[in-house]
């Protein structure tokens, strides 16, 4: 870490322009600027409003089922023989992933704004399901934009969204994955901005989204910190989370940023290997640029065109990343690494067989790195891994990769 990094620094971002150092901002069409300003003002008011926070906390407790456990993966840790691996069980949330923490929060904002229609983009479908779920609960019309390619590989989640009453819109432009779904959601929002709330699923997009999604997801890290102290009497030594847009990682990391002793690893999708170019690892090998309303690290060519990405997991298949991660990388507070498709798949099988916990393929990237890290550490040290989602949605993909017909 550089010497300018002080505990106060982490509470100072984003600034009033939505910047995390040189990253973040509001790079959107003029038509959306007043909607963003409205959202910013509403959130500034509600953030410290006791009644709003109580409503949010009660929904997290009674609808989502929080707090999620911090579980010691004893057999896995024993097998590795290094640091103890603790799993923050976001997979046990209602709808099966961390995504719902954020959709509950944004749906409350939509309700306060009196919007009757919500839209969302989704990659793996977890955010789409979480959005469709809160929309059903609040009686809102819901449209979920999803790349044609992702609709194919996440068929179960597509059907879940339909059962919940959402309309799933197939996106056939560009690479037909998450980035194109986000383009299409932005286009819908520009068109219907007056009656529509856009529930962004990750810590990207224009300000204030990276901030408010972080705040809603930070419940993960607050709980994990308190659970570490009460269950083990100490803070963990390391945190590990997968990073696509980066919402589960920010949610875990943010409440620990000021704890200097805690090292943090964000794990990007290494796809077929960073050297092949077929991956989704902008922090590992990308460069700064502007996409989807913010400045961040991107996978792009020399002409500033966004590159197509590859990952076995639809949720990590994104060429950008939240601007706060870009900043945390630059100041050296978080280390960003990559796990390949094969490593993630192996970690998926291992956790399933050794602990009886089937992780999402996204989450399996974090597990792959955590195993390596644990092996290099000692048994009195603790690693907390954000077990961000359950893997039921991925069983057809896994079977396919293993050459099995279900």
């Amino acid at each position: 870490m550089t010497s300018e990094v002080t505990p106060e620094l982490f509470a100072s971002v984003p600034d009033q322009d939505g910047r995390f150092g040189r990253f973040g901002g509001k790079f959107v069409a003029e038509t959306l600027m007043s909607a963003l300003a409205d959202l910013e003002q509403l959130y500034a008011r509600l953030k410290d409003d006791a009644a709003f926070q109580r409503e949010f906390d009660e929904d997290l407790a009674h609808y989502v089922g929080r707090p999620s456990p911090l579980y010691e993966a004893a057999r896995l840790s024993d097998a590795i023989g290094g640091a103890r691996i603790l799993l923050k069980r976001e997979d046990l949330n209602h709808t099966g992933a961390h995504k719902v923490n954020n959709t509950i929060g944004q749906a409350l904002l939509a309700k306060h704004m009196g919007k009757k229609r919500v839209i969302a983009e989704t990659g793996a479908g977890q955010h789409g399901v979480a959005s469709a779920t809160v929309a059903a609960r609040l009686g809102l019309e819901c449209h979920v934009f999803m790349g044609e390619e992702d609709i194919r590989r996440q068929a179960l989640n597509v059907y879940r969204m339909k059962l919940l009453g959402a309309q799933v819109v197939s996106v056939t432009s560009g690479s037909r994955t998450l980035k194109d779904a986000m383009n299409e959601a932005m286009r819908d929002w520009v068109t219907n901005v007056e009656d529509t709330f856009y529930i962004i699923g990750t810590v990207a997009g224009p300000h204030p989204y990276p901030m408010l999604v972080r705040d809603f997801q930070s419940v993960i890290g607050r709980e994990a910190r308190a659970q570490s102290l009460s269950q083990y009497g100490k803070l963990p030594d390391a945190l590990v989370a997968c990073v696509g847009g980066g919402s589960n990682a920010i949610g875990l990391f943010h409440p620990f940023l000021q704890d200097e002793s805690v090292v943090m690893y964000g794990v990007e999708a290494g796809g077929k290997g960073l050297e092949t170019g077929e991956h989704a690892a902008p922090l590992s090998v990308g460069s700064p640029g502007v996409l989807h309303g913010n400045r961040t690290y991107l996978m792009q060519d020399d002409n500033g065109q966004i590159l197509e990405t590859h990952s076995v997991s639809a949720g990590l298949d994104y060429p950008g990343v939240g601007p706060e991660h870009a900043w945390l990388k630059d100041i050296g507070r978080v280390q960003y690494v990559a796990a390949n498709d094969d490593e993630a798949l192996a970690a998926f099988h291992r956790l399933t067989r050794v602990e009886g916990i089937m992780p999402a393929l996204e989450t399996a990237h974090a597990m792959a790195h955590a195993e390596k890290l644990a092996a290099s550490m000692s048994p009195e040290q603790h690693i907390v891994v954000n077990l961000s989602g359950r893997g039921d949605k991925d069983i057809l993909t896994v079977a396919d990769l293993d050459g099995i017909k279900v």
Partner: protein
Amino acid sequence: MSRLSQVFADLQADKRRGLIPYVVAGDPSAEGTVPLMHSLVDAGADILELGVPFSDPMSEGPVIQKGHERALANGMSLHRVLSMVAEFRKDNDRTPIVMMGYTNPIERFGYEAFAAASAEAGVDGLITVDLPPEEVDTIDGALKDVGLDNIFLISPTTPEPRVQRIVERARGFIYYVAVKGVTGSGELDTDEVARNVALIREKTSLPIAVGFGIKNAASASAVAASADAVVVGSALIAEMEQKARSAEGLEEIQIHSAAVKLLQSIRVGVDSSPS
């Protein structure tokens, strides 16, 4: 006087309204763009708006999105767009060229290098869809230094105090977005356009161009009643697309002629506007 100021001064002196066609550089082919630009001028264009292809054109409707995709498949880049402008300038030093695109290709090029290269090529103005006044400081100084106009969008959702802040920073002209939505979408409400253009006029003496949702001579004529210039894009590209699909093995000039014909009829509409 800049080319843009000259054109608007001439229009005003002649009591005419301007016509601004938009095409994507490199669509339908890279070789055809410069000839198409000249044909559009011959058909009555006062200013040319040249779309800079981007992989993620978030504010474009399906017609222009496909134009961007075709142009990228034809190997287009911001560097090549600038070469096209320079090529066009060899035969036309009068018609202003405004480039319309997205931030990232410019950021990648480098703001100062881009401003210098644009001025050198003969570009007059820049519209960057995802660069609102809040984010424009990164480039505006460099553009000003080389005499390029940064052109801002104002939309039906822009609140009045914000209109004031935008016009204070604007140069060249104001681009009023006539519909809430992406390019080529929505139904025009010409009464609303007239009301909002009048509100903007109270705050600035800059010319006001109106775009998004203008499809034919009738809608252009209606908008020209309140605007200083009318922008038409998706309709031209859709016309070329349709022509290209209509028969096998057409010469590119035959495809262009579809857009040229539509532009000529829109020219008549603009000129007959009851202003």
